[in-house]
């Protein structure tokens, strides 16, 4: 493994850049276009201990029937569930374009043996998962065992093969500072991640704009060096359209047009879709509707 450990991040510089991005003003056509893009990029997520087959089916129904009254709107990108719910989701979604994503590798802590992690990944893929959201071993990372972290990601990537795209969750809320986020991003990318993802949603803070910017810059440097694109998924804490649009502007101004696509950028969120729908209807009709018009699954 060759790691470019030289790259440093300046905290104030990152935060100044974020402030400037949040000053962008989106109006009319640009806003509507942005909202539609966000909708198409959402991984509709349920990751709770009390998930049941029925509750997952309800979420899948929502994913495929978000807004029957406006058929020109895009569907969400994927439904993201625990491994034991993959079969249920996959049966429900098999005729739709919505993908099934599964968390794996002893989510959310990642504290298990590599064998167990491989087995869990295999099962999820066997049951129909098209995308695997793994977690990195943060304890090993903090112990400086970067090779272990790298090898683990590379092994899971090998397990995914060409059957599933691999999203690597850094759990940035446990990494401590931006330099660590940058290093973990580079390890994950070089070990073969198709996507890097901020958070499990179980630790606060989850996704933030500055952390996402640090990760986007790592992706950009990888592209400069190799010409290969890596996707980005902020997850957790992005619950309204205004914030989601700021993320999208950040993608536009950091990585450019190629990444403005659900194949390369996702939002991990549970309640964002409703707010985006409400805003889209507001752009179309001029008035806000009661949030009781949007189903809460």
């Amino acid at each position, binding site marked *: 493994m060759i790691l470019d450990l*030289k*790259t440093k991040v300046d905290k104030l*510089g990152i935060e100044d850049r974020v402030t400037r991005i949040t000053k962008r003003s989106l109006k009319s056509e640009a806003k509507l276009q942005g909202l539609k893009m966000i909708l198409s990029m959402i991984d509709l997520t349920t990751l709770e201990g009390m998930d049941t087959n029925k509750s997952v089916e309800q979420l899948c129904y929502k994913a495929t029937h978000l807004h029957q009254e406006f058929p020109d709107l895009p569907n969400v990108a994927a439904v993201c569930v625990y491994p034991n719910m993959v079969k249920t989701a996959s049966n429900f979604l098999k005729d739709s374009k919505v993908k099934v994503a599964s968390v794996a590798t002893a989510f959310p802590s990642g504290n298990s043996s590599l064998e167990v992690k491989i087995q869990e990944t295999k099962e999820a893929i066997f049951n129909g998962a098209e995308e695997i959201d793994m977690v990195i071993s943060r304890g090993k990372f903090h112990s400086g065992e970067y090779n272990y972290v790298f090898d683990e990601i590379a092994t899971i990537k090998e397990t995914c093969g060409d059957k599933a795209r691999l999203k690597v969750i850094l759990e940035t809320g446990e990494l401590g500072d931006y330099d660590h986020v940058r290093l973990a991003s580079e390890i994950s990318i070089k070990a073969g991640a198709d996507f890097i993802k901020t958070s499990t949603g179980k630790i606060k803070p989850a996704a933030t704009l500055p952390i996402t910017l640090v990760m986007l810059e790592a992706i950009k440097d990888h592209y400069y060096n190799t010409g290969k694109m890596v996707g980005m998924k902020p997850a957790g804490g992005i619950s309204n359209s205004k914030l989601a649009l700021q993320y999208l502007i950040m993608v*536009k101004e950091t990585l450019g*047009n*190629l990444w403005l696509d659900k194949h390369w950028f996702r939002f991990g969120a549970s309640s964002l879709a409703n707010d985006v729908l409400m805003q889209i209807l507001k752009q179309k009709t001029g008035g806000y509707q009661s949030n009781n018009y949007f189903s809460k699954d």
Partner: protein
Amino acid sequence: MSSKIKSLKYNGKWDFSPSIESIENLSIQKEYQLFINGQFQQPLAKKYFPSINPSNEQQLSRIAKAESEDVDMAVKSARAAFNGQWGDISAKERAKYIYRIARLVQEKSKELAIVETLDGGKPIRESRDIDIPLAAAHFFYYAGWADKLEYAFPNRFPKPLGVVGQIIPWNFPLMMAAWKIAPALATGNTVVLKPAESTSITALLLAEIIKEAELPPGVVNIISGDGSTGNLIVNHPDVNKIAFTGSTQVGKSIMQSISGTNKRSTMELGGKAANIIFEDAPLDQAVEGVINGIYFNQGHVCCAGSRLFIQESVYDVVLRKLKDRMQSLVVGNPLDKNTDIGAVNSKQQLATIQKYIDVGVKEGADIFQLNCELPKSGYWCPPTLFTNVSQSHSIAKEEIFGPVLAVQTFRTTQEVINKANNTPYGLSAGVWTDKGSKAFNLASKLKAGVIWANTYNKFDPTSPFGGYKESGHGREGGLHGLSPYLNLE
């Protein structure tokens, strides 16, 4: 880094829609008068000159031109106020007036920001978030010093100088007025201030604020005019000090005029700042600092980071990042909230910038300009950079005062210190490195008044600002900004 990799595109897929700041409730007067002895009055010769909106070349207003007798009247009223009411007032009361001005600037910040943008061409984002808040902050800061001068200069018995003549430039019209007026008032002086010819309106709106704050008549006089008006202030026998911000050329001629007189001076003049990126720097943030350093306010900034030095080992990647970042810059209507680069301040300045761009090409440097659509009318220059530049190129030696960056490389720390200091100017510099010791080393070796480490163009009223060498003398801001307005024993 391989150059074969497909370059990234940032426009054409999801572009911003117009988001224009409303000017519906704004009223700009057809004519602005001179503010002398607490009153607005017509110039005796009844001469006016137009103020042009540089983004569409339309006339915004007509501005009074002060001539000899007007200047004399302004100086006399300032002297009378200094000898009278203002001289007698307690320091604590002086502070109250300055606080009042600060609050009124805040209250009227929206109007001031819009007018600043209309009159000067700068993006509304900058006038709203930088110019006006910093102007208010400067008044707040110096208001606090007014009754603490004995503590600032213990056992030195600080006394005001008297009448100070202040001449300010067109790049930060209201902010420069605040930088000049606030410390002068805090130290007990009276003021005759002349704004720049192309951007007088916000200074005259500040005169309205000063009137509203009920500052005693004559304490601040604001008289508009061109260079000849400035000359009259400089040469007026009853002025005790000249505070000037502007070009080095004019600064030199002012110094010649006042030599042999008792007049004190502070000069804040031109610059050709080095912005230095070391290989261990946080590169993306450094690139952002380069953008802020040279393209802020269309490059009309005396401390602009107009010379970029990149350590050779990271030259390719920094340049690629810089060019990619430039693609996200929005050039156009300064009232659009998404505009990053507004209009060049005047036709004359555009001609100067264009001349330097032509010289750069002629002298063999490689030009790169943002490929963007420019509005049909008005004065515009896309963000520009030159590579293959050496120390002897004109664009690396002379102040351009526009959005034009000269990029050079270096190998060692000593080399870049030599190159950075190899200029008649010395106003500011930027250093980008992750290594604290390197930043401190350069801060002590670079001959410049302000050195930013891992940031650029950051301003704060508590921090002194001013130049070495031909960038001027005296400091503005902070405790240091008080003494140029005081007699100290």
